[in-house]
């Protein structure tokens, strides 16, 4: 038999197409009748915002490549142009499905449940029409900036992602040429307007319909021939994606002048838009046919998140889960004392993120704490962590914070509070040259009776108390000496000092992590070849590193049983005979965003479990600072293994990747339904309750003291 080339492109899926499949799975949640109605609206809204981001980052990047005449095929052997071609088809299909879901499933069901979304202003009752016209004059008109185009006024700048209304207008008396006019739907006003209540439940209308209805008031001397909403997406990303290869960067730099900044890459218009109007838009914005999306319904479905936020429909939403107390960390405890008793595992959002905030807050106040060091990637707006760090610096502690300014879409936000930290006296490092710092690590150095002791928090999620309620992540609190030493070395390296001689426990990207993963995978392969049990379970967000995938194929071919839980992109193909017969891939899309990265290696019955900040993607392994940490304490290992097992059992929110590349909901046959996220919620609640019971006074009897020491 000839040697199989595990790098052969035919064994790989293009990452962008795989991403479309992921968004499709999110869309399936919007289509799932078992989900509460408003949750379905939310999922649909998420698919829309996902797609916007995908355009701005990925499609833009592919267009750059095409413009730069970059021909190198991707992991699956597709050139950028070929990828764009396939994506165009896939995205059009996706958008069609979005709107058929919206129009056929969600809008009627909303109506049944007492919420009528009025699609067209023409469907308003007289009374309502009078209301919206008044609303227009009082609230909308003052903030509008209508713009007309003629020979003396050029085509105006249409801003990225904004919703606009385009119109053809004609001078009233002259009946002459048609002119183009446009007005932006103001983003300062709520896009949904609730109408005064009548019979038959509540009714809402979108703002653009109100403007469209009153268009003539904006162009007084003109007749409005027709008016339709439209929206464009631009290639506005000024930074070149870290995902791309270094040789591409060079290529693009060379072609910098040719790169068309701000080029429009998608145009959405209402279906049935006047041909003449569409013609003008297409010409002026240089839109090609395949980038045109004729939309049957409201543009920009992210508005559905606002609908979700409407008060009074709580029965149509999933019941809100309140993160539970961590049993090892009862309220009011001194966290350091508890950590000294043994490593503590945190499972968010099932367990509260509060201990992490408390960890830093207590460190800030503790007189024996000498230093606090932390990496921050994305932080919430009014972050209690930032406040605690500032306080620590004011209390004379040495506070070192690495703030990653290159976090996508967060730059401005980050600069503001980074400056604030600096003012408070923190030592702020604004990222590293050429590398994004994605690791999540906090080090507290404390002087104790028997010398310096280091407390470390390591996590898979950002230090963001807001997203910690929505993203599933794990974190470890430890004062293990070997991890403490490594953590110190990490921050020394981030401060520009040389690497340490030895890493005890942690593995760092970009220097060592990939090698470590390959080593761990190859070790399983070796055991399999020796006929010993060999197994890998890995959970992550995305899998697209070719070396890792090839290693997995090789391990699978050697007989290693591999179960992958990959929420998003997966370039690996499952179930190919001789290549990936032993590999299963499943994706879980639930109410919480699966975000934790957990890696299990059987290691000849002495299993090892690692957690970390890195996905198996080239950008994580090669162009970011990431940390992988082992969890050593037996109970915690069991807990992590339980998490993995439970997710492998999931048959409600899990989809399984078939060998033909299609995801299919996991089989339910003859098994009781298992929704892993719900299970974790229940477990966290039970654990918290149990420990609360233990801590509560057990008896109502007073205990008299019988002995008195004078």
């Amino acid at each position: 038999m000839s040697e199989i080339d595990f790098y052969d492109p035919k064994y790989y899926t293009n990452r962008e197409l795989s991403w479309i499949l992921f968004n499709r799975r999110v869309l399936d949640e919007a289509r799932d009748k078992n989900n509460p109605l408003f949750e379905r609206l939310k999922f649909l809204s998420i698919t829309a915002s996902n797609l916007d981001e995908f355009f701005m980052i990925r499609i833009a990047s592919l267009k750059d490549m095409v413009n730069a005449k970059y021909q190198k095929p991707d992991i699956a052997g597709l050139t950028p142009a070929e990828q764009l071609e396939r994506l165009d088809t896939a995205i059009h299909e996706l958008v069609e499905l979005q709107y058929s879901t919206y129009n056929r499933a969600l809008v009627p069901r909303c109506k049944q449940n007492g919420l009528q979304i009025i699609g067209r202003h023409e469907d308003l009752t007289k009374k309502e029409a009078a209301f919206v016209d008044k609303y227009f004059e009082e609230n909308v008109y003052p903030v509008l900036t209508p713009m007309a185009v003629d020979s003396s006024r050029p085509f105006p700048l249409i801003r990225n992602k904004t919703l606009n209304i385009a119109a053809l207008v004609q001078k009233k008396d002259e009946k002459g040429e048609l002119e183009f006019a446009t007005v932006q739907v103001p983003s300062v006003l709520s896009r949904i307007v609730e109408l005064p209540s009548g019979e038959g439940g509540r009714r809402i209308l979108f703002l653009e319909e109100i403007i469209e209805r009153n268009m003539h008031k904006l162009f007084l001397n003109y007749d409005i021939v027709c008016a339709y909403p439209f929206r464009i997406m631009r290639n506005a990303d000024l930074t070149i994606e870290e995902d791309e290869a270094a040789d591409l960067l060079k290529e693009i730099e060379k072609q910098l002048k040719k790169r068309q900044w701000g080029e429009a890459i998608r145009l959405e218009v209402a279906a049935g838009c006047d041909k003449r109007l569409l013609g003008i838009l297409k010409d002026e914005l240089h839109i090609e046919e395949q980038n045109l999306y004729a939309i049957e319904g409201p543009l920009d479905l992210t508005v559905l998140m606002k609908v979700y936020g409407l008060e009074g429909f709580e029965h149509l939403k999933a019941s809100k889960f309140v993160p539970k107390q961590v049993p090892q960390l009862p309220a009011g405890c001194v966290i350091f004392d508890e950590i000294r008793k043994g490593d503590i595992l945190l499972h968010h959002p099932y367990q509260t993120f509060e201990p992490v905030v408390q960890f830093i807050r207590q460190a800030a106040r503790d007189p024996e704490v000498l230093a606090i060091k932390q990496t921050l990637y994305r932080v919430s707006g009014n972050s209690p962590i930032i406040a605690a760090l500032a306080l620590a610096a004011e209390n004379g502690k040495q506070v070192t914070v690495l703030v990653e300014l290159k976090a996508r879409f967060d730059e401005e936000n980050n600069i503001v509070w980074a400056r604030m930290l600096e003012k408070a006296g923190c030592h702020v490092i604004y990222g590293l040259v050429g590398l994004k710092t994605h690791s999540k690590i906090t080090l507290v150095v404390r002087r104790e009776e028997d010398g310096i002791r280091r407390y470390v928090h390591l996590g898979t999620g950002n230090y963001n108390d807001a997203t910690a309620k929505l993203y599933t992540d794990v974190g470890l609190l430890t004062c293990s000496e070997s991890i403490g030493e490594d953590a110190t070395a990490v921050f020394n390296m981030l401060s520009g000092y040389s690497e340490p001689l030895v890493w005890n426990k942690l593995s760092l990207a970009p220097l060592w992590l990939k090698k470590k993963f390959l080593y761990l995978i190859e070790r399983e392969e070796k055991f399999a070849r020796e006929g010993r049990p060999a197994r890998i379970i890995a959970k992550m967000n995305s899998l697209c590193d070719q070396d890792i995938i090839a290693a997995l194929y090789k391990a699978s071919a050697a007989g290693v049983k591999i179960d992958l839980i990959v929420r998003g992109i997966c370039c690996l193909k499952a179930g190919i005979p001789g290549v990936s017969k032993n590999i299963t891939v499943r994706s879980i899309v639930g109410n919480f965003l699966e975000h934790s990265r957990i890696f299990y290696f059987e290691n000849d019955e002495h299993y090892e479990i690692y957690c970390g900040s890195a996905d198996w993607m080239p950008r994580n392994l090669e162009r970011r600072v990431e940390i992988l940490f082992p969890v050593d304490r037996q109970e915690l290992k069991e807990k992590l293994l339980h998490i993995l097992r439970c997710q492998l059992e999931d048959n409600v929110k899990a989809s399984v990747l078939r060998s033909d590349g299609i995801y299919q909901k996991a089989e339910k046959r003859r098994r009781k339904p298992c929704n892993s996220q719900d299970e974790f919620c229940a477990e966290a609640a039970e654990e918290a309750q149990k420990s609360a019971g233990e801590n509560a006074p057990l008896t109502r009897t007073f205990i008299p003291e019988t002995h008195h020491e004078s």
Partner: protein
Amino acid sequence: MSVKTFAAIDVGSYELTLKIFEFPGNNSMREIDCVSRRLDLGTDTYAMGKISNEKMDELCRTLKDFWEIMRTYRVNDYKAYGTSAIRETQNTTIVQDQIAQRTGIRVDILSNSEQRFMDYKAAASKVESFRKIIEEKTAILDIGGGSIQISLFDNDTLVSTQNLRLGVLRIQEYLNRFSAKSFQREDFINEMAMARLGTYKRLYLKDREIRNLIVIDDYLSPWAVKKSAKDGSRPIMEASEFDQLFERLRGRDLGQIAASMNLPEERVPLVFISAVLIRCIGQLMGARRIWAPGVTLCDGIAYEYGERIKLIQGEHDFEEDIVACAVNISKRYMGSQKRSETLEKLTATIFDSMKRVHGLGRRERLYLRLAAILHDCGKYVSLVNTGETSYQIVMATEIIGLSHEERKIVANVVRFNHSGFVYDGQQADSMGREAFLIVAKLTAILRLASSLDRSHRQKLQGLKAALRDNQMILTVDTQEDITLEKGFFEANRDFFKEVFSVEPVLKQRKIF
């Protein structure tokens, strides 16, 4: 809090390193932090004799960062040492002052022998392995940027130490200057090394057989430590293992070596030079095992601090090493061992009885002992000018563990034992006030002791000394005629009296 925190700073010729240590008080020390930053001061110094302004700025900037780290840990004390790069600049004092002004850190200069002694102490702090390894014939090869140091052990004491200007950075500088091609490099280094090592072998190594080689370097050792930490292998390598490693280094280019050894690429050429030197010297000695403990100067600095504040008590007696070195030098110049031993005893007796008067400590007692051992080494060169020649020999011979200043004290004491005392105002090669006083006091004692053994026949074995009022009564039990001794004793009494204001009195007690 009983735990003491200490910072050790090494301003090396290739790298600046700060290590933070903790002394919990149970005869141990624990490294809690280590930062290092590459800064090539050596090239400036070795090539131009001075450190450039840019390097100076960077040096100060880094030391300031170090200062912040030290403040974070609230260290109780610190010690910063500069080695050859600072020592060999023409304007050492100015550099030191600038650093102090700009960073608040006082950088002291380590003489070569002190530096090597600290490296050696650091190796000895790895007690278990060290004890075991020096049971057999052992040599220490300490590879620095500017020079290398080869020290030999005899029965677990260090007996000789020699400095050779074959430092890794220096060789690198030559290689660059002669733009040696990569295939020539190994031969080139070998030739350069052997040119110096031939003489070394003839003079010092002779047919001594060395079993074990302890290697201290900043180049190969870190890798060895990494390796043994990773695969749990023993830190001691058989010579054959080392040869295998060397073969691997030989056949590959920089990138491959860097990748396979997990080292930054810029380090690889230095690792290679270091490896060639180790192999060359290992073969010269016939060493069978190589131990790279991976210790650094900072470990030695901390160890010494621990000793000084009595939180560490090592089992190895380092003072005996210094003494053994001196004995060996004396032997080489055919000094009389018997007389040295007598003098050692006599001077010790007098020194101890005079404690209240001279106010000197343990270290000064060691100088006196060394002076007694080396008292006549100059006779090898001249029987007349013994004072001057002895002085020259001591000044030109490295004694591991003694700083340059300390060596000068010993040399002067030896010198004035034979020739007329020169007061501090009159000296050309001036020394500090304190050093001068030590020289005066020790000279007075050594002269008195010498006179007591004037006949060189060790007549006054059972000498007792007692201080009474303004007299020091020396009592001897001997049947022999000590007229000669008495005569010389009288002659040297005045100087003793001048220095201590105590009159020495010699009493003979005849026991029948």
